[in-house]
């Protein structure tokens, strides 16, 4: 039986919602200015970056639901979110509680989203190309090592 996050609602801080809006667009034509197709894609990436930077910021009371857990891909997003939860708690029992996994992801995402904002929106170039370059630079630095 795999981890199941389908019934969990995902929230972000009210203050960061605007960043999500700026970076997400379903439309293909807006791909360069909106590098993420869904709120879910951005949320998971922000959580990964927050965790990588060890920047955990719990949600404030002013929060906003952005999607539901059913959108997570079982074989890709869910195991990654589980890893992020373990990274925070260092205890496998955290994986028994879907809400807890998502709460932790929300905290990481809340920390990571500002970094994404800085890198993607506040740099010269289009947000998508900034994002791609950020990934490729990281990749090549690993390759060099």
């Amino acid at each position: 039986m795999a981890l199941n996050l389908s019934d969990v609602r995902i929230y972000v801080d009210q203050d960061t919602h605007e960043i999500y809006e700026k970076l997400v667009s379903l439309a293909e034509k807006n791909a360069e200015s909106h590098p993420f197709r869904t709120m879910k894609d951005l949320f998971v990436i922000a959580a990964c970056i927050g965790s990588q930077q060890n920047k955990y910021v719990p949600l404030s009371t002013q929060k906003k639901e952005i999607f539901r857990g059913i959108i997570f891909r079982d074989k890709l997003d869910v195991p990654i979110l589980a890893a992020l939860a373990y990274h925070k708690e260092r205890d496998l029992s955290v994986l028994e509680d879907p809400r807890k996994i998502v709460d932790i992801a929300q905290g990481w995402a809340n920390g990571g989203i500002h970094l994404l904002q800085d890198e993607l929106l506040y740099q010269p170039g289009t947000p998508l190309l900034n994002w791609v370059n950020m990934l490729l630079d990281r990749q090549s630095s690993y390759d060099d090592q």
Partner: protein
Amino acid sequence: MRFERLEILNFASYYGEHAISLNCTDDKPAIIFLGGTGYGKTSLFDAINWALYGEDYENELPKRRRGRNILDYVNEVALQEAERDGKYVEMSCTLYFKHDDIPYYITQSLAAKPVRTSDNTLTATQTDRITTLYEIDGAGNHRKKPYNTIFLDEILPSNVKDYFLFDGDRIYNLTKPDSSEEVREAIYRVVDLELLQNAQAHLEQVAAEYRRMAKNEAKGRLGDIEEKYDAEHKQLTQLKADIQTSRTEKQSIESQLNAIEAKLQNLPDTSKLQGRRDELTKELQRTQNEINQLTSVLREKASIAGLSFAAHAAQMLVEELDTKRKRGEIPKAVSQTLLKDLLKMKKCICGTTFEEGDPAYITLTNRLQAEQNKSNQQTLLDLRIDLGKASVEIEQSSIQLKESEIKRNELLDLQKELRKAIEQVDAELEKLPKEDVAQLTREARKRREASNSIEGKIQRMLERAEACERRIKEFEKQREKLGKQQAKVAALQLRETFASQAAQEIDKIYDIFAEQSRQSVEALTLQEFKHFVRSSSAYTVALNNNYELVVLDSNGNRALQRLSMGQSQCLSLAFITAISRVSEKNPPLAIDMPFGRLDQSVHKDVSARLPELTNQLLLFLIPEIEWNDVTRDNLKHKASHIYWLDFDETSRKTEIREL
């Protein structure tokens, strides 16, 4: 609708009363009028139009007939007699027709007084004007009906009449390179898209009214939300209107650009360079499409490759899970499967066979049960497997991301080169000694720049509209929540929602219907064009998304400018008959001088095809030129009536004679 009879009195060159039967049968749908230039063919065409559309047509006359107005149609002999006798002259046209098998007749009649101007010219001054519409019921009683646009809209709305009652010269305009607006209008009106758009606009107005009422009614925090909600809607409406305006503007500029490019293409000095420019532009467009596709791929792959930021966390979890597995705290992946297989084969791992109920069977079943109870461990095992798979997918996406980025950069470089090459061609064109070429090239450049600038503006507005829609959705949630506490506002919100949703549904229907109509018109236009012009087999006709009639040669190059004038007119004719068929209105088709501009070579095909396209066909033809051996052969046996118009130069009267 089918015309039955036309009665005219003192109309144009027709002195006194004339009655013309327009009855026809299904196998002989044509009624043909033959007359030389100035003999009164176009006057009869005008008489039918005037009878049907009265003042609307009078208002159009100066534009259509070089400044003429309806009083200029008062018969000059009748006017002279009225002056001599000190009387008024009456002019009228009565058209008898059937609509849905019910007979009607419309009369337009005016009385005019003869007046001598200071330069001694005799003119008519209107003193009375009457329009009447009668229905003849089953018992033969004539019942007066109100003559209004509602009635006309039902039979043949004034704004679409040009596509059923038209003159051969005018239709040539439809295939001019900058005529997309006229083509769009034709489809829009004839297939009733206008009705859908009006319905949508009306529902949006209703929704806006409910929003306004809800805003006035709501109190406290809900009041604020309603106000913001209303403001967002207003902004969105404005943005949509601005986007539409900009799109129309862009379309118009692009039509002008196409016309200029077509001109340049046809100039002997520039055709080679312009051809090169077209090739480069096509290549540039192809490159752009590829770049767009790759941009979407980049976005998709980046969203997976970006998960590598969690590599460290994933590695930690994998190590922990592997440690647990080594310690036997997580079942091995094979255990459950192995136990199931052994039970299925009824054979122990040591080779001993057993039956259900045997001690070995019971031991293995219990063991399997125990393994299955370890659901948490199983979850962890699955998680370990999924982490492994996820890691592979992330790695693959990272590789694909890199490859796509490299390919994209190559295409961007190619795009730069293509742009440079186009600029060089433009520079060469501008350097050509002939001033008109340079001027045209400069004009084309200006329009390209303007088109790009408007596109940028449209994109910005689209993004703003998207943001507006997102905010509206957000306000919708909040107003629904807060509305529960204010019943009256909730009721208004509900109505507003219904009206908005209905408007949105109509909008969707509109898009589907418009697209279907466009495709049907396109298919029928091509079909008819090939019927009309046999030499057109090398060409493909398309009605693109901008409602521009495009003719492409076998290489996919634009070829409209290469069509002869006759072929262009056939294309217009094909288009008009196509929209009349798509509209399913099935009114008579009346064409003044249909073959006037057509090459003799296409007379045969067009004259053979026209009677097949409608239930009633009125043709006004010039003898010999249009009514020749070829057209006569095709149309004679399809005609219920053939009328000869005789104009007497001395008496300045036209007589109508049936052949």
